[in-house]
């Protein structure tokens, strides 16, 4: 590893100031939350010197509020804290499961949903679940605050829409109402400590007759970015979320996927499995919606 500088500004304003000034001075700068991606990258693929700006000490990135209409999750909250929050888990079981899939107990002591999203890997586990849940990124920077839907946030493999002077404060997730359920499933060849070969998140709402009135499906690891598959959601709306509907949604996911063949799986494999995951996650989300 080369030479590093570290700063942990005390306020959001001073953080934005530091990010802005170091960006304009040409200093390579990287925001740090839990560091479970950053530290690994620093020790392997990307060892050059840089300024590390730690945002996990800020009160604003640690806000967790569960409101009537909106659930707000601070960007730097470690997933261990989210996993242990019973209310959050009962409201957004799928999203929390996606956070709970990250790494191990040790990793989860630090790993954040914000970091997972900002790392912007095609295989980041929380991203499809966030998309399915219509989550919105709450971003702050030199030009003030702005909100960006998660499906528009990630722009490519490892890239996102934030400018050098911006960082993520938190995520706004619409609170589930009525008979709503969400679920996220990923496929890995092992049981844990692995990276998604494909992933699918589903959130849906049923009316009293069990008919689906709203549905969103996000898929991961099968394209350069996680995708919102509107056709898959549409295939569920108006149905009882039965096998036919789930198969139609699965087919929509497979059609939307544009994966590559690599060490983790072939194109054919990923296209097929992302559909299987959508189908299985959809069934879980349906059962949860019925139960709630």
């Amino acid at each position, binding site marked *: 590893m080369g030479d590093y500088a570290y700063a942990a500004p005390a306020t959001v304003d001073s953080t934005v100031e530091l990010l802005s000034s170091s960006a304009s001075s040409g200093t390579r700068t990287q925001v740090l939350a839990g560091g479970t991606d950053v530290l690994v990258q620093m020790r392997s693929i990307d060892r050059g010197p840089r300024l590390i700006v730690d945002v996990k000490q800020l009160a604003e990135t640690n806000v967790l509020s569960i409101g009537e209409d909106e659930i707000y999750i601070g960007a730097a909250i470690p997933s261990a804290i989210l996993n242990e929050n019973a209310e959050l888990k009962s409201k957004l079981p799928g999203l929390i499961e996606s956070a709970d899939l990250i790494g191990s107990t040790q990793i989860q002591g630090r790993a954040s949903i914000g970091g997972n999203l900002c790392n912007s890997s095609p295989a980041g586990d929380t991203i499809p679940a966030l998309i399915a849940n219509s989550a919105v990124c709450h971003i702050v920077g030199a030009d003030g605050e702005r909100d960006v839907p998660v499906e528009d946030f990630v722009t490519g493999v490892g890239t996102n829409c934030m400018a050098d002077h911006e960082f993520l404060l938190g995520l706004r997730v619409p609170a589930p109402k009525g008979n709503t359920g969400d679920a996220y499933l990923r496929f890995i*060849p*092992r049981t*844990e400590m692995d990276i998604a*070969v494909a992933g699918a998140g589903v959130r849906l709402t049923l009316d009293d007759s069990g008919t689906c009135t709203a549905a969103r499906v996000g898929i991961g690891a099968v394209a350069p970015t996680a995708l919102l598959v509107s056709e898959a959601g549409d295939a569920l709306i108006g149905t009882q979320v039965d096998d036919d509907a789930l198969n139609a949604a699965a087919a929509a996911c497979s059609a939307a996927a544009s994966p590559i063949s690599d060490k983790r*799986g072939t194109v*054919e494999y990923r296209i097929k*499995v992302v559909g299987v995951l959508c189908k299985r996650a959809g069934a879980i989300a349906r059962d949860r919606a019925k139960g709630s």
Partner: protein
Amino acid sequence: MAEAVDLKAIGTRPVRPDGVEKVTGRANFGADLNLPGMLHGKILRSPHAHARIKSIDLSGALAVDGVLAAISGEDIPGGGDLGDNVLANEKVLYHGHAVAAVAATSAYIAEQALDQIQVEYEVLNPVLSIDDAIADGATLVNESQHTNGDTSQPASNIAAITKFERGDIDKGFAEAAVVAEGEFRVPTAHQGYIEPHACTATINEEGKATVWCCTQGQFDVRSMTANCLDKQVSDIRVIPSEIGGGFGGKTTIYLEPVAVKLSEISGRPVKMVMSREEVFRATGPTSATLCRVKVGAKSDGTITAATAWLAYEAGAYPGAPVGPGCMSVLAPYELENFKIEGHDVLVNKPKVAAYRAPGAPQSMHAMECAIDDLARKLEMDPIELRLKNAADEGTIAPYGPQFPAIGLRACLEAAKVHPNYTTPPAEGQGRGVAVGFWFNIGMQSSAEIRIAENGAVTIMEGSPDIGGSRASMCLMAAETLGIPYENINAHVGDTEATGYCNTTGGSRTTFATGMAVIEACEDIIAQCKERAALTWDLDVNQVDWEDGQAVPKPGVNADVKPLSLADIARSAGRTGGPLLGRASLNAQGPGASFSVNWTDVEVDRETGKVDVMAFTGVQDAGRAIHPSYVEGQMQGGAVQGLGWALNEEYIYDANGVMENAGFLDYRVPVTSDMPMIDTQIVEVPNPSHPYGVRGVGETPIVAPLAATSNAVRDALGFRINDLPLSPPRVLAAIDENE
């Protein structure tokens, strides 16, 4: 040989002498040594799988502030292929092949300096598979390599051909009512030891070097390093650290001559530690293989003939474990007609190294799959079929020797009545059975027994402890001396501190070094009897050694109190000086170890994922000195075999660059992937060992490959020949068969 019923220490499960140091993090491993003024060495590696080196210019690196030495292949003058692998000379033979090295005041500076080394390559076509290597007109990995050294034939990528033949296979197959055959591929697998290779070296003005490193054999490191540097073994002292896994992979060297040379030039100690990526790209995994097997049997199950055509990737230099592959492939069976032919094939991949039962898992995967198919065709239970044909005492093994007492039949009988076998697999699951074998080795060991003034015993031996061998040495010493285990400590000495000892490998340590420890204990007993005789004024023939003390023989009229080891040690100064027992030997008759494994699997037909639901291993240990460590070997080997069967493989791109050089994508199983690995130890004592020990460390990895394949075959209703049974392969096969 001692009878099992008489044994007091052997067969118990005490904590290991090195346990506290390890669980508290105090134990020192390869990378833990730091010396004043120490430099950090780093290696520049080839970006090409096959290329001619036209020039190397080190000056840019030497100009970097903080760099004190830089070397290339010409600085490693000896060692033949080994030296060429340590630092390449004329050609680079695989992606990651070491080309040059620097030593600098920090690891970061050393790494930056590597970028300043200019290497000019003429890129050559890489040879990346057995099929490519043996095809007509194949590019040659080594233009002067001729098969079996026969220069009357054109150069070839087939470095050697090994054959074992007996009887008349045509006649044998003509007698067969059923025949099973197939072509099976097993991918390259790495041992996956947790601790990367690491060493620190320093050399003084007299040319005397000291090397600290993690290794399975300090004496081999000494001789290999000496060869590479054209030095004498007596110029080098090698101090082995604790070892964080080896599984055969730490029986050779990569860094040591480089570190010594960099130290010689810089005048400073030099430390070198590989990254995980370097471990994958540039150390020796085991061979990828292509095996074609055929086996026939009469309708009563009697095997009449078998053939095996084996090709093993050696990597860039000759030396694939195809010989042991040939030895193992039919070892479990008594049959008259067979032909086994093995090929050692050069490819542009890292030179393979030993991996647990080197060569046996691959060839036996093929044959044990074919035997399973044979059982299906015969509608016979797979264990019954094997019992029908099992090798036994007196069988002439396919590779020549006549087996003494062996435990295959006992293992099969134990498996047949095991509750895990008599209970059928759960609904929807498939079960697969396979047999494993390893011949084991003996070779040279030395041991010294030193008795402290209070009677405490120190064993000084030379076998690095990779599987709990210190505990086993202490147990055998406790048994022989008749004293408590707790009074004994075992110490693995460096090359100057202990007598010569072959590398820990071939499952030889508990057998061979154990034998030396037992003999050294007998030496101590003889000395103690003499000291007691002197003290009591008796003839030494009138003294016995019982329960850890000298006593007058029954009928000898002497009014004396027994003398314990502590009593004798305390007064040793008056009876002839300190007590020191010793033994050195070349152990013969290691005794093969057989196993039977079966596993139940579940296959997700929509994703192709194979889940291992149950696994049982039955193995002959001869005598389990420390049963927990025997079980540990059985479980560890099973997990490595299951990992290889399910997901482990080297994935290369078209240019011969490994794409998964890390534990994220080189998928060894994690704990939650595995069921509890059930074990049952069978004990058919090895007649060549005082307590009946057979090596147990390698056999356990052999059968899981075929057992898993056979279980997936059972679950799916059709066979997938190649490994790994990774989800994409299994799903593609399901789609094809539907």
